[in-house]
């Protein structure tokens, strides 16, 4: 080496695209981009098929008529649409009060004690319980014991099974929504003499309304699309709903039943029902997104 350290030439700092490491970096970027494309592809394909195969079947009869007997043409999915609405309402009526109440406890009353930690842990564990297990559980305590007037399969049993799946989401969103409310607001309310109950009901809950509503809307959308807990709790019915103590049709179970039938007319109804269900769920998701943006302003 003849070059002394004091006279070292200035290294070339310009970017050289031909360097092996730069080529490798670009190759990996390309692969990551390809992976993203593969990730998005199923959504595009599923939506496209649901739109093409189901969208063409949309007619008034689809919403107002009963499904045809196996092998026959025509008919609609009116009973399944009403059934899905009824079962979702039952699930919501159970899960929303319980979940919001549980969330209020976690956010407002617990001070990070071991009971609250246990409930938070339990909420996470419950959200990881497979949906079919909720069905098995409700089958075990309601359907097989026939505690509702001796009836076994019923809309009520289906709604209860769905409410178990909604519960963790509602608790978590209520908890997180209430935690976002600034403590100054609570102190202000308590300072002017409001009781704890009035502070929560009149001040903190309304302030946290949008995040809670967002979570509730998303959980209802999820419940409406669930099938596994319904197939042996609400079962299915080819007729119009006969009250909440009898088996009831739902869109998701109709899709399942009709997809595996060897008749083309039934398969087409399954696609049409998928179209209705997916549109409902996407609308709920966009609504929740809009609510969230509305809250951010």
């Amino acid at each position, binding site marked *: 080496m003849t070059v002394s350290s004091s006279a070292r030439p200035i290294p070339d700092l310009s970017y050289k695209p031909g360097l092996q490491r730069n080529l490798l970096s670009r190759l990996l970027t390309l692969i990551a981009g390809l992976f993203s494309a593969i990730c998005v592809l199923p959504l595009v394909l599923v939506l496209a098929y649901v739109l093409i195969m189901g969208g063409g079947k949309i007619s008034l009869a689809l919403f107002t008529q009963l499904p045809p007997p196996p092998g026959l043409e025509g008919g609609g999915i009116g009973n399944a649409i009403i059934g899905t609405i009824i079962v979702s309402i039952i699930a919501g009526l159970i899960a929303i009060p319980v979940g919001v109440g549980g969330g209020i406890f976690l956010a407002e009353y617990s001070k990070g004690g071991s009971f609250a930690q246990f409930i938070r842990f339990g909420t996470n564990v419950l959200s*990881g319980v497979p949906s079919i297990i909720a069905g*098995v559980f409700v089958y075990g305590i309601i359907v097989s014991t026939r505690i509702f007037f001796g009836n076994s399969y019923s809309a009520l049993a289906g709604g209860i099974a769905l409410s178990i799946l909604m519960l963790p989401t509602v608790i978590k969103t209520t908890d997180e929504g209430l935690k976002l409310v600034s403590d100054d607001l609570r102190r202000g309310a308590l300072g002017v003499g409001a009781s704890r109950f009035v502070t929560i009901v009149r001040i903190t809950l309304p302030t946290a309304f949008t995040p809670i509503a967002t979570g509730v809307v998303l959980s209802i959308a999820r419940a409406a699309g669930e099938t596994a807990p319904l197939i042996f709790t609400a079962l299915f019915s080819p007729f119009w709903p006969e009250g909440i103590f009898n088996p009831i049709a739902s869109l*998701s179970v109709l899709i*399942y039943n009709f997809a595996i039938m060897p008749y083309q007319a039934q398969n087409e109804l399954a696609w049409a029902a998928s179209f209705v269900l997916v549109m409902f769920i996407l609308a709920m998701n966009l609504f929740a997104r809009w609510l969230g943006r509305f809250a951010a302003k």
Partner: protein
Amino acid sequence: MSPDTGEQYLLRRRPASEKLVDVSFKNLAIALASMVAIVLFAILVVVFWGSLESMGRYGWKFLVTSNWNPVDDEYGAFTAIYGTIVTSLLSLAIAVPLGVGTAVFITENIIPPRIRNVIGVMVELLAAIPSVVLGLWAIFVLEPFIRPFLTWLNQAFGWLPFLSTAPMGPGMAPAILILVVMVLPIITAIARDSLNQVPIKLRQAAYGVGTTRWGAILNVILPAAVSGIVGGVMLALGRAMGETMAVTMIIGNSNNFSWSLLAPGNTIAAMLANQFGEADGSQVSSLMYAAFVLIVLTLAVNVCAQWLVKRLSLKY
């Protein structure tokens, strides 16, 4: 001016009714929060209780034999347990690189924020598509599309036990692919959150010493986010194990055991979905036993996942 007696500043005394409302509201909230624990506990008790009969009769043999015969009252769930574990693990093996790659792509400033958001929203919407609709799509679109490819695999590599049968429609392979679609959004979302939590200084330092983008990602950013990503992968594993409808519709629901991924198979969740409605007697108990196995598997995986996710938030 009259002398200030201070009377107008007297604090209002709380009436007993107000205190009662306060206390009962608190107790109500506690009671409602306890519902989570009660439901969780009740699920375990009910399923365990229901499976006692079958547990007593078959014991451990239930887990390792694959003879499912309602006519002779012979039950062994190995086919379903094998199917559950193999489909969920293989679907993760495909979904993890895809999901983490996508998460890197939409967090590391590679593309404009607008496109990043679009990809993020689309992945979230994919999670909202009901399982039963994906199952319908798998039956009529995915499976016919991949069947020629699977047939070729069988012809070329049929000497491998995992590819030893000719594909005949429904089977484990299409079920694995539809599971990939179902767990991708979970992995992508959690990997994205973990990557976003990596401190900006770490990135700046990595670029400051002159590394390339992927040098920084592979050596600094991903290792810093790894515990969160692994937690997300565990959550996805729990979801894949319990996923029911799409798998039930495409896996073929065969109780005959086969090592082959191209043959029809079964999972615990699919078996429950398929048989519970028509089961009676000791079959119900055996299905409850299978359900109990599924609960134990998913609980173990979920508890591990939560432990890992919790560790991430402590690290930085």
